[in-house]
């Protein structure tokens, strides 16, 4: 073990010695500095390893040969080792990143950088308060120097503001320290902690000044304008150092001095932190400068960390885990993002589309964004989870709401930015220079997020049982992304098939049903992937990630595993959705709704875990506190995925704009994750009453019924074929929600069987229509027509699909409906039943429109040579058709097993099966007979039509009488445009996008708020100092009971 004093001696010695280096020796000066920083990193990492692996005891470093408090002492403990490691690594890689710049500046540059790192090291290790002050000054002077590495008006002005602010802050700190000395006769922190109970009013005030100065160093809202200017103007490499280095060290100082504060001050601290977290992220919404945006995010994250410290009484022994996992995530991600920003060198986030020039940086950018927000598998995920659980356990709901709200706001702008980078149209993409010394640090930090994420999960008492294999497989596809698409497609199918084979014996009950939908469905839709040529980069990792998440949901035994899988699925599906050409805004709204839903779920799981001894899923069935709230939170969380009315606005765009084979994945398969969640929830918790009176499930029943009607109505008025299908999914999911809400055997039977058939017909329709769109290059139905002649196979698929969809006999949709109406009659929900019935009629309208406008009528001129849809897109369709026909002919092959699964939960009212003959209290139904009858009728009609075919008049394109269209201005005169104009007149008022408007209003309001608040940062350095002073006064008044 190298003594920690050598960190200081090395950095200082080298810094002092650089004066001996002439101008021509800049390179050797640089190498020497790197060596020093590397050696410092080595020492601290060695200590960290010692503490971690060999359980060493913490060691004090005494200076001057005297015991504290008589001389200054330093401490190297586990925490100090961790934090100095972070600082030194940031310093080392920061220096690598800044290599060119430093070389140009010369030895003074290296000196400044090392001075900063040295200062931060000491403020972490020191146990002497005045020493802390001295080295804080060192780091802030060094920071002021680093800021002006690139000298222009902006950096100089920012640096001056920074100096003013830190000057005032350190003056106040000094005042506090000296009075603390005056009252106690010591400067040693450990001594202060011992005399804490000494309750002289003056001492309390002195401590307050010390603490408030440290709080101000952490840039609390709103006294932080100076910090933002620094982040915006400084070189990205410097901003990375400040964000990862200074903020980390200042946080540790707060952590170290925290016990000095009274419990009351801790609450004030938590309030400051939360205000900072929410305030910063709100203001970030309107920000377009990437570095300033990162500054807002950085300040916000530090605010979150301060909240954690302030709430440490409630978080208990998990405080450290929570704080560190979030801190390390922030450390890695923020440094990485600033570094990437320095490579990209664009001044608005809209220009970040250039990032597409570098696949590697794009991936890393995504990794950092997800790390920052707290998605799995990154460390902050576990931190946030534990934080919510601990807060719920201590009844701190206010803080739960605040933290989740802030996180959501942060997600909005980060994902908007990611979306811009991934998708925003940018006609000219000038490449940017990529130097190895700039990329290396980013890569290292990116890789570290995964390693540390894995490490954190392995020390988490519950996270270690999560099955990481599917996710690992998905990530492995990143490595083989260079292979041709068909190879990866085969591998993906094999992987899924193997995993299903392995998983199948363990599946039972609803897991088996949804497992089949997720995995068999996944395999079937993946087959369509063979239609893609080339490499199809970036598709397979995320497709498999989504499926990994879905599998995880079924496998989940604990709530954390469930939530983990849910988030994995969300990440995967987000990337699938955003692949579409115009998907950017839709992917963003998908992500925001998903995050919102996920946070509600997180809150729900957190409250559900209160007073429980473990996190098993079964704990949901005996929730001890606020069960109604748990139920509502979870249900709403799940319904963001099932797109129930009010939460559906992300769906149409996301599904419609997605790629041909992605639409069925996200529409037919992904939505069922929400259904699975609801099934799990309903079974575990049963019904809950609001205020002891109103049944939640009853309300959900209404919601389902209304969703069904509205979804179908909106589908009927769409011009875009894929959007029509998307809205139809909203409607069908409404049926499912309604069916589940019936809470009866038949209700569930229909809901589950509709889930299965919806997967099949929606996949079928999306693939078929997707195939058509693939060929005709448009989604507008009035631009199609007559395609039956060119695409008969697709036509047949759509025909079968809509028959099932509309619930017509003979196909299996009908069985669902028949059971459905039986169930409604039994429950006597007549009003809702009427709505459902009405929505069934509306479904006819849009299904008719779909097949009529696309396949019947006149073939467009430009489509005369159009080919049938690609073979590989047809293959899965006909597989599905085969299964559908089988289920229709032999309905009990589907219904009976499902019934069996349901019976243990809902024994009453099961169907009575005799062969294909089912009997319910309201009648009987024989699928096979109906199938035969309807097929016979159909055949008779078909034969009649064929016989009469020769008598039909062939209509030419320009025969206006028959074709009923004019060839130009198609959207106004085409008969298929605004097909249901009359209905729209009658009931169009219902489908006005009021809900969309409402959400947009919310978004606008939030943005306007953020815009307004950020006006306090008027750019005047003096105002910033006034903010600081006012902040001190206000916090003083709050802390000492003035208010």
């Amino acid at each position: 073990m190298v003594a920690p004093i050598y960190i200081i001696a090395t950095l200082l010695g080298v810094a002092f010695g650089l004066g001996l280096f002439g101008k021509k020796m800049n390179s050797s000066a640089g190498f020497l500095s790197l060596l020093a920083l590397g050696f410092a990193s080595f020492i601290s990492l060695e200590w960290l390893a010692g503490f971690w692996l060999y359980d060493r005891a913490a060691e004090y470093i005494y200076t001057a040969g005297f015991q504290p408090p008589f001389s200054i002492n330093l401490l190297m403990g586990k925490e100090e080792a961790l934090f100095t490691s972070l600082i030194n690594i940031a310093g080392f890689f920061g220096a690598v990143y800044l290599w060119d710049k430093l070389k140009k500046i010369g030895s003074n540059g290296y000196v400044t950088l090392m001075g900063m790192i040295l200062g931060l090291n000491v403020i972490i290790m020191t146990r002497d308060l005045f020493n802390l002050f001295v080295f804080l000054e060192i780091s802030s002077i060094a920071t002021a120097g680093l800021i002006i590495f690139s000298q222009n008006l902006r950096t100089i002005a920012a640096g001056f503001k920074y100096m003013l602010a830190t000057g005032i802050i350190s003056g106040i700190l000094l005042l506090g320290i000296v009075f603390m000395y005056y009252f106690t006769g010591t400067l040693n922190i450990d001594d202060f902690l011992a005399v804490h109970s000494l309750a002289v009013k003056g001492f309390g005030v002195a401590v307050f000044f010390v603490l408030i100065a440290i709080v101000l160093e952490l840039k609390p809202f709103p006294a932080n304008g100076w910090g933002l200017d620094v982040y915006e103007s400084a070189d990205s490499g410097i901003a990375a150092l400040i964000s990862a280095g200074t903020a980390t060290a200042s946080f540790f100082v707060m952590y170290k001095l925290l016990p000095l504060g009274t419990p009351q001050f801790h609450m004030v601290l938590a309030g400051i932190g939360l205000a900072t977290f929410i305030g910063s992220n709100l203001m970030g919404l309107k920000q377009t400068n990437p570095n300033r945006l990162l500054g807002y995010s950085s300040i916000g994250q530090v605010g979150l960390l301060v909240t954690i410290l302030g709430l440490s009484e409630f978080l208990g022994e998990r405080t450290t885990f929570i704080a560190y996992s979030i801190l390390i995530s922030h450390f890695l991600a923020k440094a990485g993002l600033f570094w990437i920003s320095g490579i990209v060198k664009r001044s608005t986030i809209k220009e970040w589309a250039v990032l597409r020039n570098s696949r590697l940086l794009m991936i890393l950018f995504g990794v950092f964004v997800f790390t920052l927000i707290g998605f799995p598998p990154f460390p902050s995920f576990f931190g946030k989870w534990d934080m919510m659980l601990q807060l719920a356990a201590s009844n701190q709901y206010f803080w739960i709401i605040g933290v989740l709200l802030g996180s959501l706001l942060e997600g909005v702008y980060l994902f908007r930015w990611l979306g811009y980078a991934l998708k925003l149209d940018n006609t000219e993409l000038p490449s940017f220079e990529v130097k190895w010394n700039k990329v290396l640090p980013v890569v290292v930090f990116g890789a570290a997020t995964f390693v540390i994420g894995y490490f954190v999960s392995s020390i988490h008492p519950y996270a270690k049982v999560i099955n990481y294999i599917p996710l690992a497989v998905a990530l492995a596809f990143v490595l083989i992304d260079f292979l041709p698409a068909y190879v990866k497609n085969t591998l993906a199918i094999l992987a899924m098939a193997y995993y299903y084979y392995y998983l199948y014996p363990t599946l039972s009950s609803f897991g088996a049903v949804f497992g089949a939908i997720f995995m068999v469905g996944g395999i079937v839709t993946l087959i369509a992937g063979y239609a893609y040529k080339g490499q199809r980069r970036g598709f397979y990792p995320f497709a498999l990630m989504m499926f990994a998440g879905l599998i995880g949901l079924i496998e989940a035994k604990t709530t954390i595993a469930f939530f983990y899988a849910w988030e994995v699925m969300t990440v995967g599906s987000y990337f699938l959705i955003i692949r579409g050409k115009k998907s950017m805004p839709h992917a963003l709204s998908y992500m925001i709704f998903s995050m919102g839903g996920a946070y509600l779920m997180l809150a729900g799981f957190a409250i559900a875990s209160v007073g429980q001894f473990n996190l098993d899923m079964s704990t949901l069935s005996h929730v001890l506190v606020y069960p109604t709230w748990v139920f509502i939170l979870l249900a709403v969380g799940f319904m963001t995925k099932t797109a129930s009315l009010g939460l559906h606005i992300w769906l149409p765009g996301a599904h419609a704009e997605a790629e041909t084979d992605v639409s069925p994945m996200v529409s037919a398969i992904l939505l069922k994750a929400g259904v699975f969640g609801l099934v799990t929830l309903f079974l575990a918790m049963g019904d809950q009453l609001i205020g002891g009176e109103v049944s939640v499930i009853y309300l959900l029943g209404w919601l389902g019924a209304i969703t069904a009607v509205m979804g179908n109505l909106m589908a009927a008025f769409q011009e875009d074929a894929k959007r029509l299908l998307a809205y139809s999914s909203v409607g069908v999911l409404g049926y499912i929600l309604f069916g589940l809400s019936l809470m009866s055997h038949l209700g569930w039977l229909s809901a589950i069987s509709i889930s299965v058939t919806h997967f099949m017909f929606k996949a079928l329709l999306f693939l078929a229509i997707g195939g058509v769109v693939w060929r005709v290059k448009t989604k507008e139905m009035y631009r199609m027509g007559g395609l039956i002649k060119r695409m008969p196979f697709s036509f047949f698929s759509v025909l079968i699909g809509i028959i099932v969809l509309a619930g017509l006999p003979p196909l299996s949709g009908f069985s669902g409906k028949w059971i459905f109406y039986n169930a409604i009659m039994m429950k006597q929900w007549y009003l809702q039943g009427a709505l459902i019935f009405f929505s069934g009629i509306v479904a006819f309208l849009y299904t008719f429109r779909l097949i009529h406008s696309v396949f019947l009528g006149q073939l467009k001129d430009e489509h005369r040579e159009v080919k049938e849809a690609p073979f590989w897109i047809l293959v899965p369709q006909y597989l599905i058709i085969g299964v559908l026909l089988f289920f229709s002919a032999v309905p009990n092959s589907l219904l009976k097993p499902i019934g069996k699964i349901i019976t243990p939960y809902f024994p009453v009212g099961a169907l009575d099966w005799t062969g294909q003959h089912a009997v319910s209290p309201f009648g009987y139904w024989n699928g096979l007979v109906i199938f035969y009858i309807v097929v016979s009728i159909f055949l008779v009609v078909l034969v009649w039509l064929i016989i009469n075919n020769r008598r039909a008049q062939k209509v030419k394109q320009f025969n206006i009488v028959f074709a009923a269209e004019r060839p130009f201005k198609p959207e106004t005169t085409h008969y298929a445009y605004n097909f249901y104009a009359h209905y729209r007149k009658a009931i169009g008022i219902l489908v006005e996008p009021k809900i969309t408007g409402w959400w947009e209003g919310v978004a606008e309001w939030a943005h306007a708020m953020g815009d307004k608040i950020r006006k306090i940062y008027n750019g005047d350095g003096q105002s910033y100092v006034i903010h600081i002073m006012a902040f001190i006064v206000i916090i003083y008044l709050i802390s000492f009971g003035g208010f």
Partner: protein
Amino acid sequence: MQLFSIEYISLVVGFLILLIGIWGILTRKNILKMVIGFSLFDTGTHIIIVALGYVKNKTAPILNQPDLQTDTAHKIVDPVPQALVLTAIVIGLGVTALMLVYAMKLHNEKKTLNIQNYKDLKW
């Protein structure tokens, strides 16, 4: 508490100078004036610190007289605040010098010393 004692007067004067300094920082538009305010703020703090270390009727902590070398704790003023002030003064010089150089450079950029003309970065 003795209001009319040298240390108490120093303390009050220190606080007032500190407040005058802050007032200067907060209200003067001229950057150099702000730096002057800052240096007053420093001076005030230093006076306070030294005053805190003063013990009535005791001598400086320099043991050059033999009689000071026994029972010293009752004969000298507190050396610690003085040591701290030494450090603080030097730090203050560093910070002030740096601020002044910043001010100079700012002036080079826009030929004005009014802090309100440097609002290029905001929001």
